Every structure is written in C-alpha cells, then in structure tokens.
C-alpha cells in the first residue's frame, strides 16, 4: 500500500505578508514552513505506516527550489522519499494549474491514496484536492477526521452536523484530512539526520508529460484586488457579574440579533 502526501510550502503563519506587483504573495525572504494543515495529512500517513497498513509514503510538492526544504522537513518526520515538481513555467500557478501538475505527477507515481491537507494556510482555496480527483477521474474522500485503508478501499470518518459519517471508496483515490487527525509528531533528531539521506527527485514539467502550453500560463484566474480584512467591531465583554445575571445579558444580546 502506497500513499503520496501532497504538501505545500507556505509563508510562516505569523510572518508579515507582502504582495508583489501582480498582487500575488511575495514569498522572497519570508520564513517558509510546511502548510500546517498538510502536517495533519503527514501525521495521518505516518500513523498508517505505524499500524502496518501502509508500506510506503512519498511526499510530493509543486513549488520553487526552496520547497525542497519543506519536503526535507516532512522526511524528517518519517516517510520514504520525495518529489519536487519545479519549473519556471509554473510561476504564478493558481489552483487549476497546481491541480493539473499534481494530477500529472500523481499519474506517474500511481499511489493507492493521494492524501492532502484540507486547505492551504496562505490561499485557503480548498479547490486543489477536488480538482485533482476530477482530473484523474478518481473518487474524493474529503475532510476526514481519520483515514483507514484496507485491501482495495479506503474510508474516512467525517464530522457531520449530527455526529460522524463513514465514507468509503475503492482505491485508488484522493483524500483530504482535517486537524481532527491528531497532533503532528515532532521530527526526532535521528529523523532529521536520516532525512538528509532519503531520496528526493526533482521533476520538470516535461518529466510529468506536460508542456508550458498545457499550463496556459499556469493560471486561469487573475488576482484583481487584495485588501486586509475589515476590522471587526469591538468585542463586547460581559464580566464580573453573577452567573445568572451574565447569562441573562448574553441571552438578551443573542435574542436582539435573532440568533436564538
């Protein structure tokens, strides 16, 4: 059983974000990390290795050369090898371009499960997993709080309004998991040392059978505007009151807004 975990290198969550002239995120000189939501996908894959249901974990990322640092960090947590797809033609790729590239790379890697985080911390489009599944004509099991794999099928436990649903689909497939998976492990010192010796391949577009023309400039979308979120109204605090009085005030507040 083989899993490919797709990861994205993103600017550190707390880092100051700047935009380039084309209104895309300027990544130069910003501390970069593994997309925190992808770390849950890594953790899920490694737990399946720990319990013996998966033999091989490969990491796949599309990005500039420096994204190899994220792959190396993932390898320090566990797993076997990594592939970076990097090509000058991929600069400015949007969700469609990214999905196209990942789908082609996954066709080549042919895993039983292509596993992803539920969203990226920088763009939060959440479109790539679905697009990859559609392009590869495979089932998508999304938003798993847990992923199991068996001989010829996988299933996810997904949080619903009333509890949990179990969804299953035949392999191969695409799956995404949420932060309900459990805390991602820390890389151990031996893991960090071993990661330096694990194989990492770099593929260009031609290695996955695509050309710059197929990518149509890597993006079908264009960013027309960016702006900081509007400031929220100040938080109203109800403090230093007896519990019953505080509860009444909160209930009144909610009632006047027709929330209860």
């Amino acid at each position, binding site marked *: 059983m083989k899993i490919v975990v797709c990861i994205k290198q993103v600017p550190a969550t707390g880092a100051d974000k700047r935009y380039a002239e084309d209104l895309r995120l300027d990544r130069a000189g910003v501390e970069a990390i593994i997309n925190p939501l992808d770390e849950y996908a890594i953790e899920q894959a490694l737990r399946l290795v720990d319990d013996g249901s998966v033999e091989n974990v490969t990491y796949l990322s599309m990005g500039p050369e420096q994204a190899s640092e994220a792959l190396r960090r993932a390898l320090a947590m566990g797993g076997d090898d990594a592939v970076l797809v990097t090509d000058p033609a991929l600069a400015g790729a949007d969700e469609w371009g990214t999905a196209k590239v990942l789908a082609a790379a996954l066709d080549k890697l042919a895993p039983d499960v292509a596993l992803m985080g539920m969203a990226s911390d920088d763009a939060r489009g959440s479109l790539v997993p679905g697009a990859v599944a559609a392009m590869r004509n495979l089932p998508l099991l999304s938003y798993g709080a847990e992923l199991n794999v068996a001989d010829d099928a996988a299933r996810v436990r997904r949080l619903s309004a009333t509890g949990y649903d179990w969804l299953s689909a035949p392999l191969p497939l695409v799956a995404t998991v949420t932060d309900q998976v459990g805390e991602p492990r820390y890389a151990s*010192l*031996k893991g960090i040392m071993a990661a330096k010796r694990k194989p990492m391949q770099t593929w260009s577009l031609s290695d996955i059978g695509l050309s710059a023309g197929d990518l149509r400039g890597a993006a079908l979308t264009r960013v027309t505007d960016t702006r900081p979120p509007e400031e929220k109204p100040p938080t109203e605090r109800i403090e230093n009151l007896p519990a019953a009085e505080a509860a009444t005030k909160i209930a009144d507040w909610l009632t006047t807004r027709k929330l209860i």
Partner: protein
Amino acid sequence: MTYLPTADHDELRAMVRELASERIARRAAEIDEKAEFPWDLKDLLASQDLLGTCFSEDHGGTALDTLAQTILVEEISRADATTSLIPIVQKLGALPIILAGTTEQKDRYFPRLASGEWLIAFALTEAAAGSDVAANTMRATREGDNYVLNGSKRFITHGSIASVLTVFALTDPAAGGRKGMSAFIVETDTPGFAAPRVEHKMGIRGSPTAELTFDDVRVPAENRLGEEGEGFKIAMATLDRSRLSIAAQAVGIAQGALDASVSYAAEREQFGQRVADFQGIQWMLADMASQTEASRQLTYAAAARVDAEAQDLPYWTSSAKLVAGDTAMRVTTDAVQVLGGYGYITEYPVERMMRDAKITQLYEGTQQIQRLIVARQLLQRAGVAKRG
C-alpha cells in the same frame, strides 16, 4: 579551528527551540513549584533522541559534536534550567565511562543511556569534600572479584532517580584522594545502596539533589573504570569537559531572562510610554544582551577546543563556565529589575531564572575553583612553575 555553527547546528537549534517553546517552557513554573522531576519531559527528550547526543551511533546515540551538544543544552535551558539538567547529567555521569571505560563497559551501559531508558548520575562530592575533591573519604575495598563500597555522597544531581552511577571511592586511603581514589560503575539496585534524602533547594528545584549511602555495596571488579588509583584523574578529565554544559546552561538561562525582559519592556507602559522607550532600560537591555552574547561565543569557542582535544582545555572550559555563570546571575538579576514588582513574583519566569542562575556559580566547580584553574593554566603558559 572554527567554531561557527553550521547549517546542521542551526537545524538542531531550530528543532530544540520548537520543542522547548511548545512543550518545555509551559511546564517550567509547575516543575519549580512542585519540585518534581519532569518524567514526562525526560520521556519527550528521549523520544526525540536528545539524550543520546554524546554516544556513538553503534550504541544508539547520535554522536553530535560538542558544539551541537552545547546548543542543545542552551536551548532547553532557555525554557527551563531543571529540564536542561537531564541531558547535562546524562553526559556528566557517562563521561567517566566515555573517557576511561572498556568496550565491554560501553556496550553494556551506553545503549540504555542513549535511549533514555536509564538515567545516570555522577557521584563524586561528599559532605566534607566539595571543592577539595582529594579530601574524599568513601572507601572501596577489594574482596576477591568484587569491591565493597562503604561511605556516603552528597549533592548528587539525579542520584535518587538514576539507575546507574559513576562513583569515586578510595582504594588506597594511605595514598590519599589524588593517588588512592578509583572510579566504579554502580547499578543502583545493588543491595546496600540507598538515597535516603533529597535536598530542598533555591533553584533547579525539579532536579533531585540526593544524599547517597553505600553500606557494603558489592561491585564486580569488572565495573572499575581505568586502573586503581586513576579515579582523581578521571574525575578531573570529566569535569574539564562537563563544566562546559554548565556554561551552556548559564547562557540559556541568561537568554531566557533577556527574552522575557525585552518582551515585557515592549508591552508595559509607564508615564505614558513603553518601558522599552526609557533609555535607562535600553542601557540595561544592551548590557544584558552583549554580555550574554559574549558568554555564548566563549562557550562555543571552548566547545571547539573539546573536539580539537586542546592541551589547554581547562583554561577554555573554566573560563567559559566562569564568565557564563556570572553573566547568568547578573542578567537574571537585571531581568527582575526590568520587570519591577512583576519580576519578583511567580507570575513571570524571571525570579525563577534568577534562582536557577545561582547554581551555575556553584556546581561543577565554584567560580573560585574556576579562577584557580584559569590562573594555573595562565601561569603554566607563562612558564611560571608552581611553588610549594
């Protein structure tokens, strides 16, 4: 000889810093208050392979260079000095075996020490023999294939929780401590061994400092380290290296206090401006930062001398421990001053750091002993022979 950290050192620092800030720092106040050994953090460090950095890969360790081991201690200590003693003492206790042990002794003990399954302690100090190591009185008498140990030790860090000890005892009392002392590996489940008392301390309160008693403790002769009479030499060679860990601990404590001071000064407002905007505070912060950095660089320089097996190693490690220990005391005291009343209460970490800093001026050789060592080295270099 270079001692600038490499990319590998930076990677290790980032790894330990993440672990320390996310998992260790938040436990520090509770460990201090309850004076309980943090077994959970021992397990955490073990699971991350951070207790085996001084052991070879064959023994399950990671064989990091001394600078890397220094950075490890510094980064843990920055969050909590008590927890930094776990790797410090694991190395301190093992150093006599690293320096003088046989292959069989290393094969037998190192795997369990590298994995953290067993803790080790270094049992040299006695109630009446602190700085004056040669005044030790504990006895080891040869009886057939065994040595029989009798006596007591005091101020032994982790002595009550270790599974194994390196113990120094007189095999030839007539020859005195310098010539008549030998070193032994003692497993603490040996009959006759006890740790009857743990000290109540000012700082590093989660780290048990124990009194140990040996009542006819029989140790197989194969557990002797080196030859009979080499104990003093092994102890000194150990301390020449291990005191560097204390320098690293001191640098970490100072950096932790500096970090807390800067963030407090940047947030706290008095007289309508941030505390950090007062020049009087800026001057304090600048002195704290530059002195901490000087201590760090001297400690790194000394670390490089350990791996280079420098002839004048004691000069470097004693200088580093002397400067870093005094710096930690001064910087933590100033940190309490920067925080004012808040610095004096347990709501903020700097009063704990100030109490923790004091021990770095005392253990593994007081600052006065360090000066003695530095002065002797200095006079040796100048060709001035010792008189009397």
